[in-house]
């Protein structure tokens, strides 16, 4: 009997630590380092969307390894992403936003104010499409 309750309690503890870990990114305020560079143009409007809705997870300072490995906005302008890489990331941003997959549902549950408005989504799609075309020389 004692064994079962020990097992149950450890199960709960492990479960809760997983849940709290997954929400860690939610609490952190990250200052933007985004700016236009000679490679990519980021208008003030786009920058404010990226700052308020994206970089909490997708920047070097983020706690979420997975998010920043997939996309790190700092690397757009600090030379860490090659032009080819930026083209790929812009294409992926476009697709994710078009499908309404970002920010993730899980993240929005905790941060409902981070949801992209219709106008914001449109602007991000337009921006990623245009910048990608310029970089790809098309």
């Amino acid at each position, binding site marked *: 009997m004692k064994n079962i309750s020990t097992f149950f309690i450890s199960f709960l503890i492990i479960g809760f630590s997983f849940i709290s870990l997954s929400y860690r990114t939610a609490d952190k305020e990250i200052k933007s380092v985004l700016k236009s560079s000679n490679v990519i143009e980021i208008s003030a409007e786009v920058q404010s969307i990226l700052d308020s809705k994206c970089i909490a997870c997708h920047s070097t300072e983020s706690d979420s390894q*997975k998010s920043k*490995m*997939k996309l790190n906005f700092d690397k757009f302008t600090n030379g860490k992403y*090659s*032009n*080819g*890489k930026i*083209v*790929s*990331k812009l*294409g*992926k941003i476009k697709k994710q936003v078009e499908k309404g997959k970002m920010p993730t549902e899980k993240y929005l549950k905790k941060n409902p104010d981070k949801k992209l408005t219709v106008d914001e989504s449109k602007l991000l799609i337009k921006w990623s499409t245009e910048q*990608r075309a310029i*970089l*790809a*020389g098309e």
Partner: protein
Amino acid sequence: MKKWILYLLLATFILIQFYPMSKPAVIKSNPSDLIGNVNVPDNISLLLRSACYDCHSNETNYPWYASLAPLKWWMYNHINEGREELNFSEWDTINKLDKTELLDDIISALEEKEMPLKAYPLTHPKAKLSDVDRQEIIDWAEIHMEELFE
């Protein structure tokens, strides 16, 4: 009693063999293949062939147990899915922008060790990639991504 269960298992095994499922076709000649169209270094093409091509090309080498259900259901699904996501045999037909994204996907799949799938190297020892192997493929993909936009 034990014998009875054994017979039942055997009967089920025989019966499920008749469940139809078509085998993903093997095509040996692929004029649009990555390796024939892009200058891929020999060590990289060897790694790609031994660790990726069974699911990510038309040149699948099926093992002898590939025609046995239920294993084949699982295997055929993986191959179909793999080819749909990325088929090196059709590389040259893919447009430049999509190629870039695929190269980027290859890099993340290798970095995050999502690929090759865990079970695959168990039966294909040559598909077991060391960290050095992974890095070599990643470096090649990074370089090729740049080449696409030169």
